[in-house]
């Protein structure tokens, strides 16, 4: 019956509600043990505290039984907090309730606006997600899961071999989990971004694993970057914490990042790997601090895992967000044809601050293999690490191999441990691959093509002929689809060059908060790589250049890549890059930027004679030469043509 039928009004509830609630069983106070001792006088005296029936309450307060009951029920209804029982759902099985440690589900699981924004960065079409999961291309694997599995299976095996220390999987897991808890204690939550600027050192991997464990997003920053380059990236990533390395000359990263907190609103914490500062505990101090709470909301595969800025061959860096689905699919699917196993030792010449380097970390982790570390590339150190560390797989850029070969360091080096040496990162001349192959007695040189946006897209296979492995980047990696399209966007025939487009499990969803970059980045679900490629009749791809590097000379498209390779061979030339220069009549003409060898001078005429003698058609010749002292390069040793174009 409605309350007003008993005469219960809001005014009555306001007057009697608290009293009725307290006198009823809702609040019980018992002094002594009167019922057991049958102290009936005490019971009577304290009945109000022990809890009264509705009738007793009514009699005491001058209300009817119905009024007392109605008021009590209304008060109980109003005060009852729903969802409170969730407090106990995580209890038991060894866990005790601690009020000071309790987090509501909202606190445990809710993601802030920045984390939600990152999730949108991996917002794939529902049909794509469903297809990838049903096909088994994506699953629940995460870096944290792989690390735990390896630590459980082979706790005493080396996970990381660095010049100064070797860490077992057990110790790697211990440090990573402790660091993840320490990050959480600092207030970081799932989806928060951790920027990292470190060489290929164990601390990079520990931080990466810790971020993955707690569901944070790692944003690697290239080592050469300083405050000017860093600020827009940190702001774009909304980084909350930065991990940095020791001083290099006058550059003291920890001081730079501490100072950047004034310019980057989101940046709250700076963690150097050595030399603590006020307000900046070292990584080791965080690892050893505690005890901390368990991670209650660990990262899962669909969460954003990594935020990489593209390597910079474009005019402006673009942010690529990968979750564990896209980040780990390649590693899992390519492992079998590399015959990757737990006994392998992987060495990355690529920096971990690049997607290529991250990919190699994940590759080793996928099978519980060992990561051999080369903190920073130097030709002699790379060769020394191979000889002493005896890796079974080497991943390097063409520039790394070229530098070692030019220095003659590979002529006598013992490369017998290598099963595979995979070259990637930029176009590799066939003669470079062959030169390395000649120095590998048992292993095979492979080539791989990839991008930050998709990790590994093409790969030669171990059983390919040497000619295929040295002159092409092979065939699509498992479950990836590639096509070459012509100027009109139609699929091109074999042997006809065109733009390389790709789709599949490792391809990202789009650039983060960058409408301009996303416009035209995808066509019908295919990612436009911007690379030019040609496919032979056996299905092997060869990268022939960059679409934006094409020079449109009066309507004729000139691909400068082959010409650059020839000019690089000129005895007076150390390095060459050809970019378009504006021309009033032809629209564009070719301008060659040349770094001369040994400070020599080289003229346009000499270059043209050289090209003529090598049978290059005149229309492909550059029409201007600019001598420069140093070529602008990305951290992965790719020429940044975007910086040359304005000077042409």
């Amino acid at each position, binding site marked *: 019956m409605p309350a007003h039928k008993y005469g219960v009004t809001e005014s009555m509830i306001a007057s009697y509600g608290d009293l009725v609630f307290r006198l009823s069983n809702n*609040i*019980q106070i018992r002094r002594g043990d009167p*019922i057991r001792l049958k102290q*009936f006088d005490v019971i009577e005296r304290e009945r109000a505290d022990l*809890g009264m*029936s509705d009738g007793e309450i009514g009699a005491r307060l001058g209300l009817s039984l119905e009024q007392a009951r109605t008021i009590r029920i209304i008060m109980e209804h109003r005060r009852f907090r729903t969802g409170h*029982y969730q*407090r106990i759902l995580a209890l*038991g099985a060894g866990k005790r*309730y601690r009020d000071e440690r309790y987090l509501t589900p909202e606190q445990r699981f809710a993601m802030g606006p920045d984390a939600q924004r990152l999730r949108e960065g991996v917002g794939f079409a529902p049909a794509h997600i469903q297809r990838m999961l049903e096909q088994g291309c994506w699953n629940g694997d995460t870096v944290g899961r792989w690390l735990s599995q390896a630590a459980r299976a082979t706790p005493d095996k080396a996970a990381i071999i660095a010049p100064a220390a070797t860490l077992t999987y057990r110790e790697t897991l211990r440090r990573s989990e402790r660091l993840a808890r320490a990050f959480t204690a600092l207030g970081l939550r799932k989806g928060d971004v951790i920027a990292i600027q470190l060489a290929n050192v164990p601390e990079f991997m520990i931080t990466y694993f810790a971020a993955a464990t707690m569901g944070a997003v790692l944003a690697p920053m290239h080592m050469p970057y300083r405050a000017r380059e860093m600020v827009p990236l940190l702001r774009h990533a909304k980084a909350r914490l930065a991990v940095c390395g020791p001083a290099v000359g006058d550059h003291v990263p920890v001081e730079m990042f501490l100072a950047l907190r004034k310019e980057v609103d989101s940046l709250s914490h700076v963690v150097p790997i050595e030399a603590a500062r006020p307000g900046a505990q070292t990584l080791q101090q965080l690892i050893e601090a505690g005890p901390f709470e368990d991670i209650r909301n660990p990262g899962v595969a669909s969460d954003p895992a990594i935020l990489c800025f593209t390597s910079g061959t474009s005019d402006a860096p673009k942010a690529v967000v990968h979750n564990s689905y896209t980040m780990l699919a390649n590693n899992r699917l390519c492992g079998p044809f590399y015959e990757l196993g737990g006994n392998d030792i992987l060495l990355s010449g690529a920096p971990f601050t690049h997607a290529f380097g991250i990919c190699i970390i994940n590759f080793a982790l996928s099978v519980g293999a060992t990561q051999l570390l080369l903190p920073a590339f130097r030709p002699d150190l790379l060769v020394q690490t191979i000889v002493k560390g005896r890796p079974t797989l080497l991943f390097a850029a063409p520039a790394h191999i070229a530098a070692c070969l030019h220095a003659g360091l590979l002529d006598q080096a013992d490369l017998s441990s290598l099963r595979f040496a995979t070259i990637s990162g930029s176009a590799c001349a066939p003669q470079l691959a062959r030169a390395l192959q000649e120095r590998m007695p048992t292993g095979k040189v492979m080539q791989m093509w990839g991008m930050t946006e998709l990790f590994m897209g093409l790969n030669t296979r171990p059983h390919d002929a040497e000619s295929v492995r040295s002159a092409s980047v092979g065939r699509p990696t498992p479950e990836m689809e590639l096509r070459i399209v012509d100027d009109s966007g139609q699929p091109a025939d074999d042997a006809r060059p065109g733009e390389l487009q790709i789709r599949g499990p490792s391809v990202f969803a789009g650039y983060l908060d960058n409408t301009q970059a996303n416009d035209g980045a995808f066509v019908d679900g295919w990612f436009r790589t911007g690379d030019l490629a040609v496919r032979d009749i056996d299905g092997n791809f060869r990268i022939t250049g960059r679409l934006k590097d094409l020079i449109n000379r009066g309507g004729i498209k000139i691909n400068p890549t082959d010409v650059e390779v020839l000019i690089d061979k000129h005895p007076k030339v150390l390095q060459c890059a050809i970019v378009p220069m504006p021309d009033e009549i032809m629209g564009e003409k070719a301008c060659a930027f040349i770094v001369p060898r040994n400070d020599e001078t080289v003229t346009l005429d000499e270059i043209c004679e050289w090209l003529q003698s090598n049978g290059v058609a005149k229309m492909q010749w550059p029409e201007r030469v600019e001598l420069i002292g140093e070529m602008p390069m990305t951290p992965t040793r790719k020429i940044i043509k975007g910086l040359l174009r304005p000077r042409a």
Partner: protein
Amino acid sequence: MKRSVDSALAKRKVLDYCLRKGALCAGIADLDAINRVAPAGHRPADLMPKVKSVVSIGVGGNTRGAWGVSAKALTYFGSTEARAYKIAFGLAFYIEHTFGIPAVYCPPDMDSEAGARVPFQSLKLHAELAGLGARSLAGDILLHPEFGYMYFASVFTELVLAPDEPLKENPCPAPSCVAMYREVGKTPCMKFCPVQCLSGKLDEQGRQAEMYYDMAACAEMSQQFEAMPKVLANAMREHDPQDFDDLLALESKLLFYKLSTGSHAMFGQCFECMRVCPIATKAPLADPILRSAAARAKADAEAPHK
């Protein structure tokens, strides 16, 4: 038809029946004492006008492992209450068949006129007065020094049975709990209650001086049937269709399901105070194997020397 009954023999038979059927203990509550404590409308005569005796039955016993399972699973270990009801149900028939005197199984549910937290009859009061347990600092949950934490059921009968006495000593707080209270001002049950609904004071001898229990807060954890009207009312007031759906989705769906199937699960899942209670979790005779051994030892000791 009523038969002539030897009251002492009848009591022995009644109690033996209970123990034979799996009760940890049983006893007869003092009807006069019940009537002086229970409020009008909740006295045995309100259910059975000619009631002469109240039989209380205690059932329980969890393995140590069971006390450690996750909270959401522990509720299923609490189904011992059904065993108590079963014994009581059988006992009512047993009394009528054996003695020809009416008996009634006391319904263990709430009084629908009195709201969600008021029972027809206080089974706890019956048990306490029958000596099956004493009130603890954990919200007056009854504890027995040998059988620990139990579920109770009652049978009312017109058969006259001599009442038992309540326990002479209250086992709560246990010595370790007293020690903790003196260190931190809380016993384990107070410290680990997820909604902090318990507090209290001990006297200088370590006995209970005051027990404070916020049953309303406890109900938020353990009586989720009360959540449903609130969830529905909140949903009705919600204007945003998405928020409306959200309020009725996820965990609420499970509550709806549990309610519609009449399941008690999710309604009594919080045992955190009992998990940390040494009397509940280490009761020596709640373990059936130890109980049998103790019974054999007692029989041997009482047997005449051969």
